Structures are given as structure tokens and as C-alpha cells.
């Protein structure tokens, strides 16, 4: 009996180690995704916590060799829908001050190196890009984040948002068009003429 317990806990230990290596390493990406969905740090924390609990519970069903990050994002998205949509409960109040504080803490240590040459893009502040992105309707904001920030393929995104690849492609196109217009508004405020070409 004692021996059986020892074997089981060794298996559990293996599972825990694998989970740490495969899943917990993506915690920052998941937290950022949750922040973008909920726009509220407390809700984001809850969502990430619930996601990991569920992921650990069903870790045996994770297909080894596939993208664990994509698997976790899908679970988080489902949790988000169940929590905030199904019960028609709105996420907590958007804490803009808290988000702003994050930026003030972080922006000084951000690297400003960019492949883009010095032009109006350079004039944009981290906070402005963040605000521009957050001002987009969720369906556009989400695909842009998953694609441009998290680097998922269209197929992975389509699976996460449960829409055909063609829809993902079209949302990205339309979302980027809206985003570009908003970024240009900010650039104009900095005195850049965005209609002229370099």
C-alpha cells in the first residue's frame, strides 16, 4: 500500500515538473492576454488562476508536441466567455489609473530600438499604442494581440476564437486599418504629417 502511494506521487511529481516546464512558463503571456480581455488586473489574475487550475486538471489531455501556449490561451478564452459572457456579467470596472501606473513604472526600461526608421511611428508613446489598441472593438483587438504580440498563426487564432481562418484574416485587416487611423491621430498631435511619405 505504502509502495503504491509512493509510485503515484512519483507520477504526480513528473506531471508537476512537466506542467511547470510546459505550461507555467507562459504565465506572463497569459496574464497579458487576460488583461487585454478583461481590462482589469484583478479579473485578469482570477482568470489566469482558473485557467491554470483547469489546465492542470486536464493536462493529460494536452496533446504532447503541440503548442502548449495555444492550448492554454484557448482554455483562458473559454473561461473568459463562461465567466463574463454566459452569465451576462461584465468584467470589473476598467482600472485605467492602475494600467497607467504600470506604464509609468515600465516605460523607462523599455528598449526603443526599432527596425522602423525615425518617422511618425517613433513619436508614439507606449501608452498611446496601448490606448489605441484598447479602443478597438474586442473582436479586432483580440486578433491583433494574438497575431502581432503573441505570434500565433492564423490557424491557431482561428481555433482560439472559434472562427474560420478567413474571418481571422478579415478581422486583422479591418482592425489594423482602424488601429492605423488611431495611431495617425496620435502622431498628428506630435506634429507629424502622416499623409506624406518618407
Amino acid at each position, binding site marked *: 500500500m505504502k509502495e503504491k502511494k509512493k509510485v503515484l*506521487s512519483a507520477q504526480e511529481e513528473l506531471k*508537476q515538473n512537466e506542467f511547470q516546464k510546459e505550461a507555467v512558463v507562459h504565465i*506572463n503571456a497569459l496574464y497579458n492576454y487576460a488583461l487585454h480581455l478583461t481590462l482589469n*488586473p484583478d479579473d485578469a489574475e482570477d482568470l489566469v488562476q482558473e485557467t491554470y*487550475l483547469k489546465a492542470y486538471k486536464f493536462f493529460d489531455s494536452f496533446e504532447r508536441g503541440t503548442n502548449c501556449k495555444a492550448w492554454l490561451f484557448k482554455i483562458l478564452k473559454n473561461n473568459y466567455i463562461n465567466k463574463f459572457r454566459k452569465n451576462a456579467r461584465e468584467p470589473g470596472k476598467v482600472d485605467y489609473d492602475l494600467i497607467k501606473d504600470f506604464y509609468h513604472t515600465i516605460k523607462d526600461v523599455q528598449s526603443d530600438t*526599432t527596425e522602423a526608421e525615425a*518617422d511618425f511611428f517613433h513619436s508614439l508613446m*507606449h501608452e498611446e499604442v496601448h490606448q489605441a489598441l484598447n479602443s478597438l472593438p474586442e473582436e479586432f483587438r483580440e486578433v491583433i494581440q494574438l497575431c502581432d504580440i503573441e505570434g500565433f498563426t492564423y490557424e491557431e487564432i482561428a481555433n482560439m476564437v472559434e472562427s474560420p481562418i478567413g474571418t481571422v484574416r478579415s478581422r486583422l*485587416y479591418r482592425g489594423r486599418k482602424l488601429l492605423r487611423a488611431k495611431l495617425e491621430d496620435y502622431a498628428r498631435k506630435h506634429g507629424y504629417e502622416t499623409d506624406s511619405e518618407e
Partner: protein
Amino acid sequence: MNCKKAMVLMSAAIDGELSVKESEELTHHLAACSECASEFQDAKKTKIIIRERIVRFEAPQALVESIVKLTSLTS
């Protein structure tokens, strides 16, 4: 291909998500249309600026610790 279709394809092109045929069509159009070629450069920059300027937050330490704890507790 007209400019409208080229605009739609550009978005997928910067993500490397075009089919071979679409990619050829777009390349062909961009070579002939300087306005779209310029727009394509700006579209690429927009993607770069999003990736670079969006601040990535670190998950709070308390959250990280709670997850390690939660996964241990469920064993």
C-alpha cells in the same frame, strides 16, 4: 488585381499567411503600384510598432506563487 484587393492581401502578407498564388499576385501588383508599395511598407511598420510599443506586463509574483501552490494542492 486592384488596389482594394491588394490592401486586404497586404495584411495577411506581413504575417506570412498568403498562399503562393496570392503572394505572386500581390508582388506583381506592388511592383506596378507605388502607392500600394508605400502602403505595404507602412503596414509592416505598424505591425512592428505594435509589437515593440505594447508593454508586456509581468504576472504579479503573488499570482505566480499561487499557481505553483494550486497545482501542488490538486495532486
